């Protein structure tokens, strides 16, 4: 009747199809054991989940935020483990929590002061950065040009509000408003995508 299950079935299928060591039946069994207090199963489950979460967030968040998002998700899994229903796939439950924490992380972008980075930063592997940049670009393309420009300059490139104001010709107040509205728009977009899944 009333409720709309989110489309996490696809996530579960993709988890299995990738053949990346993920066995959803095993995850289900480990989570059931964890609910009964089996610490070793739980430890193994969380260790395996981390690898999946790393890939999940790598496509959706800037690299600097990935570890925090993973840890937040692990804590959420721990605190809400009693809400897992063993009759349903663990992957769907995990994906729902990961998405919730992802939206939280995007919201926190609004509150976080933007750090100015050095020009030379040693980076071992660019793959995650490129993937998340592509994902962010795709999202930013859905915003109004003034909003995406303000977010790109202040939140991604690390310019101050005043510098972004000079670069764009917008007033400082307008830059702030565009960032605020743009991030709100991104959040609601993600929510509506989640409902449509």
């Amino acid at each position: 009747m009333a409720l709309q299950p989110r489309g996490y079935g696809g996530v579960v299928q993709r988890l299995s199809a990738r053949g990346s060591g993920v066995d959803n039946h095993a995850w289900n069994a480990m989570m059931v054991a964890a609910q009964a207090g089996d610490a070793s199963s739980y430890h193994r489950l969380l260790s395996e989940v981390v690898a999946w979460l790393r890939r999940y967030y790598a496509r959706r968040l800037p690299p600097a935020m990935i570890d925090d998002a993973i840890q937040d998700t692990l804590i959420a899994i721990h605190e809400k483990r009693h809400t897992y229903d063993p009759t349903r796939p663990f992957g769907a439950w995990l994906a729902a929590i990961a998405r919730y924490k992802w939206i939280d992380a995007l919201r926190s972008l609004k509150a976080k002061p933007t750090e100015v980075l050095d020009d030379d930063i040693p980076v071992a592997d660019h793959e995650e950065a490129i993937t998340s940049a592509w994902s962010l670009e795709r999202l930013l393309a859905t915003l109004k040009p003034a909003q995406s420009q303000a977010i790109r300059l202040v939140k991604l490139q690390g310019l101050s509000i005043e510098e972004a104001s000079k670069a764009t010709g917008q007033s400082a107040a307008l830059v702030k408003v565009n960032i605020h509205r743009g991030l709100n728009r991104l959040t609601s977009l993600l929510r509506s995508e989640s409902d449509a899944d």
Partner: protein
Amino acid sequence: MRTEPLIDRLANELKPVRRRTGWSDALALVVLCAVELGLFLAMGMMRPDMPTAMHLASFWWKPASLGLIGLVSGSVAIMSLDPVRSPRRGLRWIMALIAVCLASGWLLEPSRDGFSTLTSRLDWVSGLECLYTIVALSVPAVIGLGLLIRRGAPTDHAGTALAAGLAAAAWGAFVFVFACRFDDPLYVAVWYSLGCGAVTLFARCTLPRLTRW
């Protein structure tokens, strides 16, 4: 903090948990509501003309509509405590149900007097009293649903809080039906809607802040 030490810590802290089910939440809520209704009636709050009122279709329209809205809203709120479920479609059903209930009230007793008797029919002094009482009677349900939301894992706080607010408001109004001596659908539509709206707005604004996880 690195991830491995966190996993070690979480695994070391692990304790068996009692699994949450929608049925157990619903049962807890039903018990709370039954106690409230029992106490309300035991305090002698029932309207004195109840035997007469029970012959009126407009009297039965009130508890039937409010009970149905409360039941559906409560179900939507409880089911959305599962992280994989969204309350959005359920909320659309609730809105449609509210519209149907209001329309059926109008069909039951359409106004034939135009606006001339509007002031006397609305009786704003009693109406404000109704509004206040509905809000007060909704408090236990708001608290109960708030505790359930905190224990659950809703991923759409706004939608869940809205459904919870509607359920609590409909319940408060349902209990009040047994004390309210007004059966005029217009009066009910105006004052009950205002009371329920206030409770829903309060829940929508407050619960998401208190139940983040």
